[in-house]
């Protein structure tokens, strides 16, 4: 009965400890990996600028038949490097909204003035290219350059930036912001660090409680803490192994190549980082259980040599 009185509380505490270790590890990995810097690193590694350029090329070429504006008018004025720079800036702005450093809570490169407002490099070349095309067209066709003409030029420039805006926002921060998701995610994002501290404190309290429950053989805590680490490691690493081994993220059907790349690469990177962490946690757990086994056999040997009142395991 005494064994049950220590076993059951220890088991229950271990369940909570396992979940705390799992949750704490997730928070640590999230805090390290879900950052603007990391996202930008992924964008650079995967040449997202080239992908954005290809998407824009496809878009403007397909629009030629309805707008009459050749794709080159736009494409000659934008470069993959500039597009990547915009994407990176959008990422920093997006993460700024999450961590509260970007109080403007707006991501947009829709119109040139907004580009200036955020200190982005204004693409005068693109504006000149579009204006130049319209001007030549008007001259060739004897169209008066009146207010309506100016409106058309401005609309075309605005539309071009709008298309670029939609394509450079590789993590879809604008869409998430529009639907109020960023506001909610920011709350959770702000709690990451506090969550980590809370998880650490909770783990410490649980270990102390385990020591209290197993006070007659304190070294048993090594076993309970060890198996908690092993179980949380297995629970965390197993889905990651499946996701990575089955190349799960590659099966996503996101039409825009740059968004597909940014999301799938980020998810794979996060999964790999989490898996590595959980494997490390498992190894720590195994080491603890082995240490417990060693101490237990030494103790058993001693007990055999000098018989004591029956040992209470657990």
């Amino acid at each position, binding site marked *: 009965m005494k064994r049950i009185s220590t*076993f059951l509380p220890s*088991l229950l505490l*271990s*369940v909570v400890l*396992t*979940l705390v270790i*799992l949750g704490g590890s997730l928070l640590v990995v999230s805090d390290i990996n879900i950052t603007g810097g990391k996202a930008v690193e992924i964008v650079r590694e995967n040449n997202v600028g080239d992908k954005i350029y290809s998407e824009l090329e496809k*878009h403007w070429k397909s629009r030629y038949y309805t707008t009459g504006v050749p794709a080159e008018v736009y494409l000659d004025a934008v470069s993959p490097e500039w597009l990547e720079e915009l994407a990176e800036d959008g990422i920093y702005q997006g993460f700024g909204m999450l961590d509260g450093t970007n109080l403007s809570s707006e991501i947009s490169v829709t119109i040139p003035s907004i580009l200036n407002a955020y200190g982005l490099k204004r693409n005068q070349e693109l504006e000149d290219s579009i204006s130049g095309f319209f001007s030549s067209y008007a001259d060739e066709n004897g169209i008066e350059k009146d207010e309506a003409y100016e409106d058309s030029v401005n609309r075309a420039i605005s*539309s071009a930036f*709008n*298309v670029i805006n*939609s394509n450079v926002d590789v993590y*879809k921060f*604008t*869409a*998430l912001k*529009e*639907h*109020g*998701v960023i506001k*909610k995610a920011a709350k959770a994002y702000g709690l990451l660090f506090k969550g980590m501290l809370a998880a650490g404190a909770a783990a410490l309290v649980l270990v102390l409680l385990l020591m209290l429950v197993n006070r007659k053989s304190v070294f048993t805590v090594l*076993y309970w803490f060890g*198996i*908690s680490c*092993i*179980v*949380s490691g*297995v*629970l965390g690493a197993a889905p990651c192994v499946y996701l990575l081994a089955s190349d799960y993220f590659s099966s996503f059907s*996101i039409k825009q190549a740059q*968004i597909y790349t940014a999301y799938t690469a980020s998810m794979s990177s996060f999964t790999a980082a989490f898996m590595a962490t959980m494997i490390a946690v498992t190894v720590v757990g195994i080491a603890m259980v082995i240490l417990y086994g060693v101490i237990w056999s030494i103790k058993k040997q001693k007990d055999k040599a000098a018989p004591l009142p029956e040992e209470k*395991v*657990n």
Partner: protein
Amino acid sequence: MSKKKGKNYAFLHIATPFVLLLLCAAVIIFVSVKPADKLKVYVNLAFMDGLKTDMDDTGLVIRDNEIIEEYTGETSDTGEVIRPQFGELFGMISSDKLSTDVPVYWGSTSELLEHGACQFFGSAIPGTSGNAVVSAHVDTYFADLEKLSEGDIVSFKTNYGEFTYTVSEQISFRSSENKYVKPTEDDRLTLYTCKRDILGASDERIGVICTLTESRFYTTAGEGEE
């Protein structure tokens, strides 16, 4: 006797991690059902947004206006509404029970439904008397509609005022029935979506009827924060 006890200890030591694994797996599965569902909605919302302001091949022009989030100026119980054009984003529905704020477009087409909720253009625009009927897809904007229950507060913000409703009734009807989308004498907001059906499109519609409890028309221009 001692050997048997030793075997029991060994078995206990080996079996315990498996018991722990099962218990923890059960807890994780139980607690992750809801977040996984929410994540699915967010992913759907993010990836359904394309080049919103583009004119599509059908000639529909979708206008995404900024809706005033916080209005700090004076308000009045009565006022003038700003009637939107077909395909124009003119309002934002929010409630504590809804995971996301829902953009509302004037008019209803399959393309508009990919951008947000749609208000049937034959229904009463908030701020005027009658039945304002709004629908959206169940896998995106109205994923949480079934969570609304009697007494919940629903806010409908527009650029001319904010209208607060209280859920008064949960409804369910066949798509061919039109009793809930008809004009009414009272001022109400009817929200509906398809009932979830794993086999495909459902013929059944579910939703809520909300009764108008407060109208605040904006009286000072330029006092809002978008």
